[in-house]
């Protein structure tokens, strides 16, 4: 297989280059990961998990990779004007897969480690090395293995025990450059016992070349830690995003995760969450707005290894054109994980005849004292509601927009950061009016 060979050769030919300036932990994980990548092979349509999400066409593109870490003349802080009004976030930037240090020093509470993953792994091996790749190394996903083999930098946020970071943090990941580019992106987030933070990660594409982002995020929540983690994608039809997110939650920790896909090409989000100890809670939700040939595939596995934990998955898709949505949600309740509460729901709105939804909700339960539910429904625009609204003078287009907006509303309401919620609401309105994809030069700033 051509793509498989390309990436295998790439690794072998550049193994020594990848060693240059890489932190010990980063380089130490490569060879095992590469062996796993070769054993697993790139996912194809034959792979059950990737049945509706064929990555091969995107992987066969001849991308440029920045293995020599050439600096791009980018000034992300100046280009990126898309901050959330009334929400002053601490901004961090990754351009393609290069971390851009801030010009102005950013002050966070004492002991918080943040910034370039590679640099901080060198500077603070004592607190970071035990977390790096600890979850991803257990994964059976070939793209995650490829990421570990190739990754050269990324973003890290480490919050020591008991520290509350009050101000929201925002990581802006953007693609820039006129050639087709593949970026290997990595995120490590560790909240020690009792720590808390809010992190927004948004993906953008500054020009219209073909881009491929292969991302791995590892998130560790210590006892009683609380994280609000928001992901937003505002790219375009020629962007492929494969993201593997691994989450480990200790006792009584609390996670709110919300993924909003406004514009994309092909997106595959894998989320694997493990409840390690009792009393933890996770609220995972997602909203994908899809048009034309866009595809969004969310695969979520919630592993209730410990009892007494509470998980809630709510994923919604709004599709028009020939878009496709895929949802694979799995709840696994391990033997002995009693008093588990696991809810899962998936609702989809197909507003055109060609739009397709594939939903695969699954429950695997090996304990007997649990509350679990799952449900999936796919429907069309309510014609009666449409007529009712038109009878009051709204155009059909406006009425449809109201109805789509209403459908998406409860996911937006789950964003507990109010200024971000308002911003997302505004962006969704623009998205439904087709205004987000109109601007070719800058598709992030309306």
């Amino acid at each position: 297989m051509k793509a498989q060979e390309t990436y295998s050769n790439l690794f072998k030919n550049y193994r020594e280059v990848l060693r240059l300036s890489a932190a010990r932990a980063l380089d130490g994980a490569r060879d095992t990961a590469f062996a796993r990548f070769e054993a697993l092979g790139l996912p194809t349509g034959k792979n059950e998990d990737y049945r509706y999400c064929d990555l091969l066409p995107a992987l066969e593109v001849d991308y440029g990779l920045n293995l020599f870490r050439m600096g791009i003349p980018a000034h992300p802080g100046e280009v990126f004007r898309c901050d959330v009004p009334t929400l002053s976030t601490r901004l961090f930037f990754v351009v393609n897969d290069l971390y851009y240090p801030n010009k102005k020093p950013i002050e966070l509470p004492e002991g918080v480690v943040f910034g370039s993953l590679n640099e901080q792994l060198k500077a603070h091996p004592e607190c970071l090395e035990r977390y790096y790749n600890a979850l991803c190394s257990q994964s059976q996903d070939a793209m995650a293995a490829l990421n570990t083999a190739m990754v050269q930098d990324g973003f890290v946020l480490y919050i020591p025990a008991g520290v509350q970071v009050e101000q929201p943090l925002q990581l802006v990941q953007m693609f820039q450059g006129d050639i087709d580019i593949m970026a290997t992106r990595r995120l490590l987030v560790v909240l020690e016992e009792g720590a808390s933070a809010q992190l927004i990660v948004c993906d953008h594409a500054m020009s219209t070349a073909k881009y491929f982002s292969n991302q791995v995020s590892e998130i560790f929540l210590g006892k009683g830690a609380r994280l609000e983690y928001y992901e937003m994608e505002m790219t375009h039809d020629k962007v492929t995003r494969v993201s593997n997110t691994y989450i480990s939650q200790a006792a009584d920790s609390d996670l709110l995760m919300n993924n909003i896909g406004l514009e994309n090409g092909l997106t595959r989000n894998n989320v694997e969450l493990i409840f390690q100890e009792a009393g933890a809670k996770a609220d995972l939700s997602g909203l994908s707005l899809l048009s034309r040939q866009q595809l969004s595939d969310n695969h979520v596995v919630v592993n209730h290894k410990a009892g007494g934990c509470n998980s809630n998955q709510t994923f919604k898709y709004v599709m028009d054109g020939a878009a496709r949505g895929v949802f694979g949600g799995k709840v696994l309740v391990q033997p002995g994980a009693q008093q588990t509460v696991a809810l899962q729901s998936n609702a989809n709105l197909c507003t055109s005849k060609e739009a397709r939804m594939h939903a695969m909700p699954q429950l695997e339960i090996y304990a007997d004292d649990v509350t679990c539910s799952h449900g999936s429904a796919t429907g069309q625009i309510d014609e009666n509601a449409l007529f009712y609204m038109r009878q009051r003078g709204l155009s059909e287009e406006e009425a449809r927009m109201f109805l789509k907006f209403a459908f998406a509303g409860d996911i937006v309401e789950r964003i507990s950061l109010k200024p971000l919620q308002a911003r997302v609401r505004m962006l969704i309105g623009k998205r439904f009016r087709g205004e987000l994809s109109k601007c070719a030069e800058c598709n992030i700033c309306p």
Partner: protein
Amino acid sequence: MHLLEIKNLHASIGDKEILKGLNLTIDEGEIHAIMGPNGSGKSTLSAVLTGHPAYTVTEGEVYFKGKNLLEMPAEVRSREGLFLSFQYPVEIPGVSMVNFMRAAVNEHRKYRGEAPLNASEFLKLMREKRALVELDNKLANRSVNEGFSGGEKKRNEIFQMAMLDPVLSILDETDSGLDIDALRIVSEGVNKIHTPQKACVVITHYQRLLDYIKPSIVHVLYQGKIVKTAGFELVGELEAKGYDWIKQELGY
């Protein structure tokens, strides 16, 4: 020029013809009642006039203020001043009454070449019109019709009618599901909105609504046609005797 002129209207849903050559003329200031047994085509008439996409007009003409009504999309009919109070108002979860009405009012204003209302002007209008039908502020802040009782839904219809200030209103069984107090409130609302420049068509089975909203012209619709037209006295006669005598009179 009549306000509304319906000539030989035939309309079908699927293969089934419901309206079979209906004629009706309405002028400004008039209140018409349309009565008739179940299945005679009363609700079909209101759906066809307001442009429901499920119905096909196979023959005939309809002019509204001299313009060809059948050529207009549903929303343009609304903006021209045609309003339907639905027999079964639709619940629209997630769409707030306030946002919905603001969009509707501003679409009507745009159509007339007027600037949109700003937030405070709009809220003032809402307050004023809400009072007409004693609609609770809480309801106005909820999703459209969601969780409203039957009576609240009908009150909400008349509230919307007041907001949009139509020239011709069709009330399709607005009395169904109303208790005596709600019936009075709704009817008083309709009467307050009515002016000599406007007209109203009341579709109902019962006299009690017509005692409040007094029609000057009463029609009986039967098997897709208007088969009898008379003054208000016909209401009492129908209430007392039912429809059989009309059917006999017509030789059915």
